[in-house]
């Protein structure tokens, strides 16, 4: 059967236990389904289809919850992954400090050119905050990784974070394609970039603010 999409990106959620990785993937809303059958088994991964500048992009997003107690994610999980969300909890200092360890783990196990992004989750819990936004930003600058604070509970910035990561992967791929085939790739790629910024989010992104 013909391929019905332009890109397929495998993404991972990584970080200490309890930072909210599962909530980012699994929408814990107040409705009745969460006490139902699905929540007792848990979600392994989700497939999301997004529109990125006119291209149909499939995201396969994996939760690594349950693996992290080994303080490392096995190579098998990293295999083929093109983007990694590094998640810490702004109310948990230790989870923030461990981001550096996770980055080291990624460097040792994942593909060298994997795109990364840091998420400071639970930013709705202002009273319990232990890690300031500035420290998050500083860490991101240090590693030259994009950073955003999120609240999975309030669906704040979660979807836009995935769009940002996906867009960065796509840009990297197009750059590679262009480098290997300068003449052929030119026509489409430049046009795409021109309207990248003002692109309005659709579907699941519509619930949250832009970066």
């Amino acid at each position: 059967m013909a391929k019905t999409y332009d890109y397929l990106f495998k993404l991972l959620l990584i970080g200490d236990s309890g930072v909210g990785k599962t909530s980012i993937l699994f929408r814990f809303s107040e409705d009745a389904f969460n006490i139902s059958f699905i929540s007792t088994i848990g979600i392994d991964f989700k497939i999301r289809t997004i529109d990125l500048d006119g291209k149909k992009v499939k995201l396969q997003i994996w939760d690594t919850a349950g693996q992290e107690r080994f303080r490392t994610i096995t190579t098998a999980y990293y295999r083929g992954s093109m983007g990694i969300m590094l998640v810490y909890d702004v109310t948990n200092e230790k989870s923030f400090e461990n981001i550096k360890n996770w980055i080291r783990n990624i460097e040792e196990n994942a593909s060298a050119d994997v795109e990364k992004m840091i998420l400071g989750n639970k930013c709705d819990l202002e009273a319990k905050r232990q890690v300031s936004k500035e420290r998050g930003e500083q860490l991101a600058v240090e590693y030259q990784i994009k950073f955003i604070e999120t609240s999975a509970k309030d669906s704040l910035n979660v979807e836009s974070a995935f769009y940002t990561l996906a867009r960065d992967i796509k840009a990297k791929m197009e750059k590679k394609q262009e480098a290997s085939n300068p003449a052929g790739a030119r026509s489409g790629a430049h046009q795409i970039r021109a309207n990248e910024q003002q692109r309005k989010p659709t579907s699941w992104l519509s619930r949250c603010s832009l970066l």
Partner: protein
Amino acid sequence: MSEVENKVVPVESEEKDYVEDGKNKLIVKCKFCGSKILDKKSAKYITLEKELPLMQQDNNRKEGEIQNESVNEFYHVENMYTFENIGFTHTVANCKYLSCADCDAGPVGYYDMETKHSYVAISRIVHA
């Protein structure tokens, strides 16, 4: 869970108004939140008998008990990337259950680990 166990029920698929050329004529959406699960004409209509856990389990049921019902109309999806938006649960007895990617309602179907094919229960979705 394997396909061998699934009894094929002979039903004339041509009679269904949501089936065209053996495929889903319309977009498949979540019954509860409207999240798009499948694009139109992306999955094959099939009939087979399969026990699926109820989407809403009775809170007063015995501990550990799972309430099932028999479902016999499905959309057959050979490649998981055909899905627009879908969740896959952790594996239970060689199968993963499918859930809505937006509201987590489910199971809306199942994924067979052996064949790597997915089956969306038509009684648990809406067409649009």
